């Protein structure tokens, strides 16, 4: 909220932007440096949680047969996740995971969306901790669901032993173990984190780059303007990435749950 505007107000632009720009000044001990107990990021995460709880509570408080506008929006989101993600990926038994997927989808979408909301302008998901924890939840979920359905031994047997002749199993089992139990959570977390990190970095480069060029030489003003026009265009691209990444995160979680529930390979 204040990090970038401070920089711009002082008239000196720290270009190129660095990882430092992702660590915003603290809020709770106001303006303290190297204090990360309550920052703008923390604030945004809690805000997202609050908005989602309030939105769904209020819209579903007095459900109407002919929905009001807000109820229609909430039902559309839930219906979309339930039909197009949960049921599509998992089948009819996927309906019981629809509430979790909806929560996940909405939370990722909203926290991603902060990246392009004026005055927020950074997504909590551009810090690896948040995607990592979301991926951890999904990881625990799909393993738990699989173990509960098949039993411990049978689940791991299913997960680790592919249908193949015995003599190539030694080659395949390490790959299966690695890709199922290590690559999955890692790639879930890194995909979301890297997309949001890169998006923020890109916007910073083009915005601050415009100022840097203007400060360097007044003749470069047209290029600065071009740079800011690019910022606007990239903001629309960011929006696409935001929605896509929220969708991909949810779809992949659903796909892992489906894999854990599957009877046979």
């Amino acid at each position, binding site marked *: 909220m204040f990090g970038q505007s401070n920089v711009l107000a002082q008239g000196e632009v720290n270009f190129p932007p660095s990882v430092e720009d992702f660590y915003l000044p603290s809020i709770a001990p106001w303006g303290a440096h190297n204090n990360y107990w309550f920052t703008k990021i923390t604030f945004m995460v809690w805000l997202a949680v609050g908005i989602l709880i309030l939105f769904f509570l209020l819209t*579903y408080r007095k*459900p109407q047969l002919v929905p009001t506008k807000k*109820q229609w929006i909430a*039902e559309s989101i*839930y*219906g979309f996740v*339930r*039909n197009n993600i949960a*049921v*599509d*990926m*998992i*089948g*009819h038994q996927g*309906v019981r995971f629809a*509430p979790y997927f909806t929560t996940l989808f909405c939370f990722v979408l909203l926290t991603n969306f902060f990246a392009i909301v004026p005055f927020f302008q950074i997504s909590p998901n551009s810090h690896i901790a948040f995607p990592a924890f979301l991926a951890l939840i999904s990881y625990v979920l799909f393993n738990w669901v699989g173990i509960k359905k098949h039993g411990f031994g049978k689940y791991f047997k299913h997960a680790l032993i*592919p*249908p*193949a002749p015995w003599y*190539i199993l030694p*080659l*395949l089992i*390490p*790959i*299966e173990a*690695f*890709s199922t139990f*290590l*690559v*999955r959570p890692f*790639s879930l977390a890194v995909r979301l984190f890297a997309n949001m990190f890169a998006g923020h970095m890109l916007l910073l480069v083009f915005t601050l780059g415009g100022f840097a060029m203007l400060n360097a030489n007044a003749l470069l003003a047209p290029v600065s303007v071009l740079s800011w026009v690019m910022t606007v265009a990239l903001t629309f691209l960011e929006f696409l990435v935001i929605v896509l990444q929220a969708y*991909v995160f949810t*779809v*992949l979680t*659903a*796909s*892992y749950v*489906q*894999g854990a529930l*599957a009877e046979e*390979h």
Partner: protein
Amino acid sequence: MAGDQKPPNAGGPGDVPSGAGQGWTALSYLIAGMLVWGFIGWLVDGWLDTGGIATGIGIVLGMAGGVILVIRNLGTPK
């Protein structure tokens, strides 16, 4: 909660997963194959002092393994 009304197309054809998940699975098999056996090969390299040959063999083996897994798990169902 009002979430209990019937969605228009609940149920659907059933338990066939859509393409996106399969795509990511295939990709992760191919990459994981190279990484796992490449790493094992690299360890063997360090152990036997073979100067990179074992790593190469490991990566090729891993690629083969990844391809086999993709065919076995995602190929045409029997």
